[in-house]
C-alpha cells in the first residue's frame, strides 16, 4: 500500500493487475497517455506436480527490463535523461520552464507524470518544447514501461536533454528505474529541513538535490545549512544547489551542471 497517497487502499478497481493493462489506454489530443483502466486476469492451465522453484528474482525485474531497454534507446541518440523526483508542488514544472528558456536552442524533451490533468505538459508546450503527459491514474509513480511508451511519441535528436517529471511523491518513485542517467531531487525550502531524514531513500538514490524557492527562505524560518547537512547525512555523495525558479537565483550553476552531465554523457557514448 502506498503510504503517501494511499492509492491501492483496498481497491482493485482501476488498478489493474493484468500485465496487459498498460495497453489499455488511449491517446488524448496531444498524444498524452492515460492509465487507470484494466482488464481481468488471465488463468494459465498447467500440469500438476509438487516441486520447489528456486528463483532469486528481483520483484521489480520486469520494470528493470523496461528501464534497461529505455536506457539503450536513449544512449543511441546520446540523450541525457534526468528523473526529477520530489513532493507535490516543490516547483518541478516551474524550474523546468525556466531551464528550457535558459537552454535556448538546445534540443529538449519532457515527459510529465501526474495522476490526473495535462496542466504540466501544457505549461511545457507553451515554451515550445515537445512534451508528453503520462497520467498514471491511481499509480503514484512512473514506471519503465510508461516511459518507454512515452518515448515513442517524442522526437529525440542527438544530444537531447530529456526531463522526466515524476509524480510528486517522496516514496514510491525511488524504487522504479525508468532508464534515466540519474535522479535529481527537488525540495522546496518550505517543506522543512527534516524531509531528507523522513524520506531517506529518495535522497540516497539522487545524485543532485535542488533546494528550490530560496526567495521564500527569509519568510519561513528555515535553516538552509541544516537542510544541506541532513541531505548529506542520508547521502554523503549528493550534490546540492540552492535555486529559485521565481527569481532565477542559482540557475546558472544548475545549467552549468546540466552542460557538464551532457558532455560526460556524450564522451561516454562515443567511447562505448
Amino acid at each position: 500500500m502506498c503510504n503517501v497517497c494511499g492509492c491501492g487502499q483496498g481497491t482493485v478497481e482501476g488498478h489493474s493487475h493484468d500485465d496487459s493493462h498498460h495497453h489499455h489506454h488511449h491517446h488524448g489530443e496531444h498524444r498524452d497517455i492515460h492509465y487507470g483502466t484494466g482488464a481481468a486476469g488471465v488463468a494459465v492451465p498447467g500440469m500438476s506436480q509438487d516441486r520447489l522453484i528456486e528463483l532469486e528474482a528481483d520483484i521489480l525485474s520486469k520494470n528493470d527490463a523496461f528501464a534497461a531497454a529505455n536506457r539503450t534507446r536513449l544512449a543511441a541518440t546520446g540523450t541525457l535523461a534526468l528523473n526529477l523526483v520530489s513532493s507535490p508542488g516543490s516547483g518541478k514544472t516551474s524550474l523546468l520552464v525556466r531551464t528550457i528558456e535558459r537552454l535556448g536552442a538546445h534540443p529538449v524533451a519532457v515527459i510529465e507524470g501526474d495522476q490526473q490533468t495535462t496542466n504540466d505538459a501544457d505549461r511545457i508546450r507553451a515554451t515550445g518544447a515537445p512534451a508528453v503527459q503520462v497520467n498514471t491514474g491511481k499509480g503514484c509513480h512512473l514506471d519503465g514501461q510508461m516511459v518507454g511508451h512515452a518515448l515513442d511519441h517524442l522526437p529525440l535528436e542527438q544530444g537531447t536533454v530529456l526531463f522526466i517529471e515524476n509524480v510528486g511523491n517522496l516514496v514510491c518513485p525511488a524504487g522504479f528505474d525508468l532508464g534515466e542517467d540519474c535522479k535529481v531531487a527537488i525540495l522546496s525550502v518550505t517543506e522543512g529541513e527534516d524531509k531528507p531524514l523522513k524520506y531517506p531513500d529518495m535522497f540516497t538514490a539522487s545524485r543532485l538535490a535542488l533546494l528550490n524557492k530560496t526567495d521564500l527562505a527569509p519568510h519561513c524560518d528555515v535553516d538552509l545549512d541544516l537542510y544541506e547537512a541532513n541531505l548529506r547525512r542520508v547521502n554523503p555523495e549528493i550534490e546540492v544547489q540552492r535555486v529559485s525558479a521565481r527569481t532565477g537565483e542559482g540557475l546558472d550553476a544548475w545549467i552549468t551542471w546540466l552542460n557538464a552531465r551532457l558532455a560526460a554523457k556524450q564522451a561516454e557514448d562515443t567511447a562505448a
Partner: protein
Amino acid sequence: MHEMALCEGIRGIIQDQARAQNFSRVRRLRLEIGRFAGVQKEALAFAFDVVMRGSEAEGAELEMLDLPGRAVCYDCEAEVEIDDRFAPCPRCGGGKLMPTGGSEMRILDMEVT
C-alpha cells in the same frame, strides 16, 4: 515503497514462470526483504492477498525473510552491518554511512503444483 505495485511485480513473475515451467498453482512463496527496502510487511501481506486473486498464487502462503542493512563507512572505509538507517558506524562511531545493502526485494523460491 508501494506494496501494491510490488505485488503486481510478483504476480507478473509468477505468471511468466507458470507458462515457462508449466504449473497451475503456487502453494507457498518466500520473499527476501532488505531492512531498508522500505517495505511494510503487513501492507505487503494484505496487498498480496488482494492482488493474487484469480492468479496461480491465489491463497498462497507468503513468507517474508529479512536481510540485514549494510553500509560503507566513509570514515573507516569498512563495510558494516547496521540496524537503523541513521545508526553510527559500529566500528569507528563515524556518522557518514552510505547504504550498500538492505534494499533487496526478491522472490527466493516457490512451492508449486
